[in-house]
């Protein structure tokens, strides 16, 4: 059993707070991804779990034991670094077995474990090579192999795919997921790429400014963000935020955004009522603004816009236009024949809308 627990963990560099007291419970065998923009404290948090950074305050426990003052080598963790950190003078086999050799594990056992890890990662024929003779993707596999042979309590990944090109990154992402399915080990994975976070994680931890914004399963974060930051960070292209004014007309609520006015779902009337007459932010993802479809579900509300930019993506087409002074994106079928400058009738699925209080940046 290797759950990882963080209690009020703080990291201070001189006068700046990198991590401002975070609490996190990672269950045994769980795959947790820390995601956030650069400087949000996610890497620092991972390095504190690894023991590479001292914690300024709070407690970190691995498998129920507090490890605040335990050196990295005694924490029974393995880490995959962004630039792989393979020892250039050692062969792949030597790189992978280095930790075991230091621990004086029997030779047969080392051989068995290295060969097993090499088989999982499909690098058996590379074992005699040196890192310089490997491609980026192969080095990435070796770095993972070095972690697997250790059979640690916790895997730590520090932006492991950032140095790979886009195509390889997608491929390795799948590999990592497969490996985790084969080698069920508690995993903490740091990335700034929300797609990686969504695809890999059992649970995603969104961090911002040294604090945890929200923790949840990928789909929960996507569909039920609690803050404007999470709503905007998860999803690509990101959620549209349109300044609007809530008005009440004969019992129903209307969001007025310049020339566009949309009636809000009845079910939310009670929730949104305190904001009537106030300036708030209306949030809606691009895929919930589409062309009018006969089979549309939910409560599609029709409106029309003048399209500024058309971006055909192949599987979909993105439209950009302005509502109430801000740029807004919509996703339409690639078959929609629309050109920039044209007026396009669209439908908004308001069952997926969010209302954000600009005073707190929280989702109402």
């Amino acid at each position, binding site marked *: 059993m290797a759950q990882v627990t963080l209690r009020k963990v703080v990291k201070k560099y001189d006068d700046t707070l990198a991590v401002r007291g975070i609490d996190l419970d990672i269950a045994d065998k769980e795959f947790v991804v820390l995601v956030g923009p650069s400087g949000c404290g996610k890497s620092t948090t991972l390095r504190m779990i*690894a*023991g*590479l950074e001292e914690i300024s305050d709070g407690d970190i426990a691995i498998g129920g034991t507090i490890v605040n003052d335990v*050196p*990295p*080598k005694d924490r029974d*963790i*393995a*880490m995959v*670094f962004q*630039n792989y*950190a*393979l*020892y*250039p*003078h*050692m062969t792949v086999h030597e790189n992978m077995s*280095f*930790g075991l050799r*230091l*621990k004086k594990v029997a030779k047969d056992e080392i051989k068995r474990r290295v060969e097993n890890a090499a088989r999982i990662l499909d690098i058996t024929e590379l074992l005699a090579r*040196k890192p*310089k003779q490997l491609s980026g993707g192969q080095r990435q596999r070796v770095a993972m192999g*070095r972690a697997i042979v*250790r059979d640690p309590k916790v895997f730590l990944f520090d932006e492991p795919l950032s140095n790979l090109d886009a195509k390889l990154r997608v491929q390795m992402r799948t590999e990592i997921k497969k490996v985790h399915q084969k080698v069920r080990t508690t995993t903490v994975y740091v990335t700034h790429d929300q797609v990686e976070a969504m695809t890999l994680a059992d649970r995603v931890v969104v961090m911002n400014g040294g604090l945890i914004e929200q923790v949840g399963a990928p789909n929960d974060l996507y569909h039920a963000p609690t803050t404007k930051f999470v709503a905007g960070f998860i999803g690509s292209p990101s959620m549209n935020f349109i300044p609007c004014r809530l008005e009440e007309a004969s019992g129903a609520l209307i969001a007025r955004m310049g020339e566009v006015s949309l009636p809000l779902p009845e079910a939310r009337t009670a929730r949104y009522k305190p904001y009537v007459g106030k300036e708030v932010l209306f949030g809606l993802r691009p895929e919930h603004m589409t062309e009018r479809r006969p089979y549309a579900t939910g409560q599609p509300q029709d409106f029309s816009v003048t399209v500024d930019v058309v971006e055909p993506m192949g599987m979909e087409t993105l439209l950009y236009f302005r509502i109430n002074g801000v740029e807004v994106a919509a996703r339409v079928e690639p078959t929609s024949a629309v050109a920039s400058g044209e007026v396009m009738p669209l439908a908004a699925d308001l069952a997926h809308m969010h209302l954000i209080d600009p005073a707190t940046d929280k989702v109402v």
Partner: protein
Amino acid sequence: MVDAATGTMGVGTRAAARRRPGLFQRKSTIAFLMALPLILIIALLVLYPALYSMHLATLNKSMERFVGLGNFEFLFKRETFWMVVQQSCIFAITAVLFKALIGLFVAHFVHAIPNKGQRKWRGMLLVPWVIPPAMSTLAWFWLFDPSYSAFNWLFALVGIDPVPWLGDAYWARFSVILVNVWYGAPFFMIMYLAALKSVPEQLYEAASIDGANWWQRLWYVTLPMMRNIILITVLFSTIVTFANFDIVRVLTAGGPIDQTHVFATWAFKLGIEGGDIPLGASVSLFMLPILGLGAIFILRDINKRGNEA
């Protein structure tokens, strides 16, 4: 690289392109012409004296008769020669070893100092290497003075008998090595410091997660990563130390009773002071095969391993 010769041919006709470029258009010719001044200087200042000393080594004392390897035969029969060979080896090996060890130790020390204060320390630690050795050795000479020097005075204060630094054969050998180490260690320090700085921090982090302690990180990560720099520095320093002249000359002039002579000082003594230039040339030539062999082995190893990092 821009091909100067073919670059101009692109505009020519096909037939012209197929013709071999003229002698003065070829890249190799141009390169040779550019390097010619340097080649001439090297030939004049290095090659000519080297060949000339080989020629000298085959002559008799009055430089009138060709004696072949006669000078070497004569040297091999003399006890002093073998003592100089032995002393040169002891001097070079011990001095280089200590320079390398102290250099490595100090480099680690300086590397651990935060960047802000590091420049100051680097500068101060380089001082011994920057002062002309003939001058600094003179200062050491005074420090070693048996009756009036700082060392023996300090020893007297704490009740230790005065040490005959330069008067006793073993102490004199110790002293020349000490001064050579003092002079040469900063060079090792600065080279090793540069090498240490080029080792990525994440390798140490990976090693510490892999379970390596301080010593294992040094042995399995730092030293292998510094390997080429260490080998080149040691090779370079061995050559320079083996051929050292100024420190031994100023400090002991080879004494007492020739006990601290190295090749260069003994060659000087025989050739210039003793007036037997061919014999002196033979002594100095004797270093050549020893150093040549070492250089070949070390450079071959670096070539073989150099491409892996």
